[in-house]
């Protein structure tokens, strides 16, 4: 069972209270973008074995979107953070680096 701490209400919500929102920190390309950019935005998703940044919504709780960093292999949750950001907080990245020395770092 996946437990994520909602940064807005501070509750440890289990996955049945949440809604998965897919990969986080995707750059949106809309009308006027090149075909390549639009294809990347629309279809190309990372599928790492290890550290992954995701969007989640506390659907049955406060209803807010937030971000989570977790490991796709061990299901370890490294942390959650606000949705009002374009990249993960430095402290979280450092924490992950400590736990996963071979991790290549956050790539947008």
């Amino acid at each position, binding site marked *: 069972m996946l437990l994520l701490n909602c940064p807005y*209400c501070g509750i440890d919500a289990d996955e049945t209270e949440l809604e998965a929102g897919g990969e986080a920190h995707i750059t949106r390309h809309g009308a006027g973008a090149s075909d390549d950019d639009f294809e990347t935005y629309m279809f190309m998703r990372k599928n790492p074995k290890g550290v992954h940044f995701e969007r989640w919504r506390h659907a049955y709780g406060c209803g807010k979107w937030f971000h989570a960093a977790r490991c796709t292999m061990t299901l370890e949750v490294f942390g959650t953070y606000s949705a009002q950001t374009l990249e993960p907080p430095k402290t979280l990245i450092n924490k992950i680096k400590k736990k996963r020395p071979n991790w290549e770092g956050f790539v947008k």
Partner: protein
Amino acid sequence: MSNAVSALNGASFKGSVAIKDVGLQGMITLRGDFKSAVLAKAVKAATGTAVPETGQILHSTKGSAAWMSPDELLLLVDYTNVDAVIAKLDKALSGEHALVVNVSDARALFEIKGVATRDIIAKGSPADMNKDALPVGMIRRSRLGQLPVAFWMDDEKTARMVCFRSVGEHVFTWLKNASKKGNLPKYHT
């Protein structure tokens, strides 16, 4: 004027806990900026309470204010008084980026009473029903079975639960079923 009734029209059931439809309750959804002094003043005038902190529900003789999300409050006031309170809120918040809606007839409110109250809710909700996790004075939005609900403890034996009116009957039946005698999980008793 039609005759206003609550979702289950005051129905009640006695099993391992007593469940009842509380009846008509004035409920107002208020969205806005919690840091605003104007909003704090308007809430004070409406319910007699301060703006609740994260996860809190505050009571006064005039009403209650519950924290629903970082920008949403649920105000509980007297049913007959709702329109007057909303008119006042609208006036007080006229220059603010805020929203006030009467949801009294769009919600159902239940009371669950008995020593096993925490057990009954724990049967259908992933919420931590431990005394430390949900003490009196805190509200929890979660789910019961597959339905979104919000609940809080009025005292150690009494909980109140709000859900959408359209699923009120389902929630009532669910609670009745859960409180059939002899099938308590006894997590909290």
